[in-house]
């Protein structure tokens, strides 16, 4: 067990999986010589050579499309999209191709592919280096969507994603890359895709979060705990397929639900989780569900004062907890 930064955990996962399985390759813009703009792939080119660590042309649709072809033909590609904000040109390859290959071939072909992308706000990245794109993909049957919040999960889930038989969209909360440190178990540490994690137990209300917001939610829970409000925090980790049981189990226990995400409100993950509660736990709910999210603006503006005005922070989350607990 050693304390590591999230970015190190990710690099280790890539390194170990490349060492373990010669079918694993990495491709994307600047992933080779430069080692990635966030240095997630640093050292891999030297170690595994240019046939397995590929600096690609500036072509997101081809990065994913090439990875799909390679996956169908026996490789386990890990495609990097430099920022999640630039994943949209690859939408067709992801949604119409990767997600449907197994289904449309009636199971004859599979697409074991990981698309990694740093996502999220809080780094003064402006409209095009701050986006949250998870709900586009969590909507699409045939895709798995994973967002780790801790270094241990980042490593273990990325390794699981690489070993998965199906396409996984692996979104990395880039604000957490260096900010969040944590213990990472030694050895071949794999965290299964699917189960959510109760990151903090509590009695009065359930707060579901993921990525960087998990940490702010935990801080807010700590803050209101001093006021006697006991918050159970669920770290989603896998957004699709959704771990309905863990969410519902917690909601049935606490009777109150809030969801925190930095994606904008309408049709963000919070919508699906609130809907789940309204369908499956309505009689257990003691108060209206709450969503603490970015408002419906097109990602975060650049100027610090503007970004701070829209991005959920600990105070806003804690305030919502207090209001929900009192309701």
């Amino acid at each position, binding site marked *: 067990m050693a304390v590591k930064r999230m970015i190190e955990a990710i690099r280790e996962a890539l390194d170990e999986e490349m060492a373990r399985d010669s079918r694993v390759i990495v491709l994307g813009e600047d992933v080779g010589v430069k080692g990635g703009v966030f240095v997630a792939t640093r050292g891999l080119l030297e170690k595994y050579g240019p046939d397995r660590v590929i600096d690609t*042309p500036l072509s997101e649709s*081809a990065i994913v499309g090439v990875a799909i*072809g390679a996956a169908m*033909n026996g490789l386990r590609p890990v495609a990097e999209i430099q920022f999640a904000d630039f994943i949209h040109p690859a939408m067709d*390859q992801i949604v*119409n191709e990767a997600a449907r290959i197994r289904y*449309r071939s009636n199971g004859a072909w599979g697409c074991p592919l990981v698309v990694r992308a740093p996502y999220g706000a809080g780094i003064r990245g402006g409209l095009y280096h701050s986006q949250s794109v998870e709900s586009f993909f969590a909507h699409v049957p045939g895709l798995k969507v994973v967002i780790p919040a801790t270094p241990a999960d980042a490593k273990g889930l990325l390794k699981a994603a690489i070993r998965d038989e199906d396409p996984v969209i692996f979104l990395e909360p880039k604000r957490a890359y260096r900010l969040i440190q944590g213990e990472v178990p030694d050895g071949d540490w794999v965290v299964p895709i699917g189960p959510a994690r109760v990151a903090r137990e509590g009695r009065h209300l359930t707060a579901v979060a993921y990525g960087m917001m998990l940490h702010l939610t935990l801080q807010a829970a700590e803050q209101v705990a001093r006021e006697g409000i006991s918050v159970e925090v669920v770290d989603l980790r896998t957004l699709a397929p959704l771990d309905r049981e863990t969410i519902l189990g917690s909601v049935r226990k606490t009777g109150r639900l809030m969801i925190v995400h930095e994606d904008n409100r309408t049709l963000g993950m919070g919508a699906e989780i609130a809907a789940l509660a309204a369908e499956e736990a309505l009689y257990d709910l003691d108060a209206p569900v709450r969503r603490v999210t970015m408002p419906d603006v097109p990602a975060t503006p650049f100027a610090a004062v503007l970004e701070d005005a829209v991005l959920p922070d600990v105070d806003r989350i804690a305030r919502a907890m207090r209001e929900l607990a009192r309701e």
Partner: protein
Amino acid sequence: MATVKGSAAARAADPALEAVGSARLLAMYRIMVLSRALDERMWIVQRQGKVPFVITAQGQEAAQVGAAMALRPGHDVVLPYYRDMTLMLALGMTPKELMLNVFSRAEDPNSGGRQMPAHFSLPRLRVLTGSSPVGTQIPHAAGAALASRLRGEDSVTFCSFGEGATSTGDFHEGVNFAAVLRLPVIFFCQNNRYAISVPQRRQMAVESVAARAAAYGIPGVSVDGQDPVAVFQAVTEAVERARAGGGPTLVEALTYRYVPHTSDDDDRLYRSPSEVEQSRRRDPIPLMRQRLMEAGLWDDEQERALQEEVARTVDEATAYAEQAPPPDPATVMRHVFAERPAAG
């Protein structure tokens, strides 16, 4: 019917024929005839209301058979498009399999009735599953070739599409990627002059799709797509270059579609019957038959026998597919994800 005859002198007068070899020439012809007969039957069963939709290859048989013959079936990776039924036949998909596909039967090896007809997929022939969105298979081809090369296989990847597809971003990104990495891919464009109703001049400002190759630093060749021998030779050259590590080639086969785009299309809205008629004068099937006969490789007797055999094959395939059971609705939720967990 396997006998190969004809005078050496007559063949020598057509050096292309000589180079290709009589056995292959006859195989090409037989496949084209079979494809046309199956194709016509597909339109019939569609008009009879037995199937809702067809999309076929008429007019493009020579381009497809010529290309297929340049490949090693089951060894080379193939990414066809919806117009490639002749290509599939030539690679080894059976008429029965094609008809099962048209009837969307459970036994359809392409998708078990999940996809529209002519969306091919066949692991035993390394035919990767394709979709309807035009051009998406082009980056896949680059990726498949990358995988083959990484494993040290000497297989090439063959990728087929229409001239309309060359306007897509995926064409550009995929071909560029393959060119930069010098991947063993053959990009094969069947230029039938229309993308549904849109004529080539509204699709591109160049005379020939082959001109697009210059943007990628790869060879671009344009051949007569009504001549299977010319196509075979051009694709063979591209395949040899790819196998030898020389990177991708863009091969354009100039051809024409004789039927509407699909059974939902009315082609009289955008091209004149006389244009179609004109084009039919270069129907690759009679052209080839005549050439074979002139070379002494074919005669009326053989033609009659072939027509009978083909008719029987088409009847049998159609009858089989028609009575074959539809997919089981209970299976509809399967294969969204892999059924067994990963080996870990």
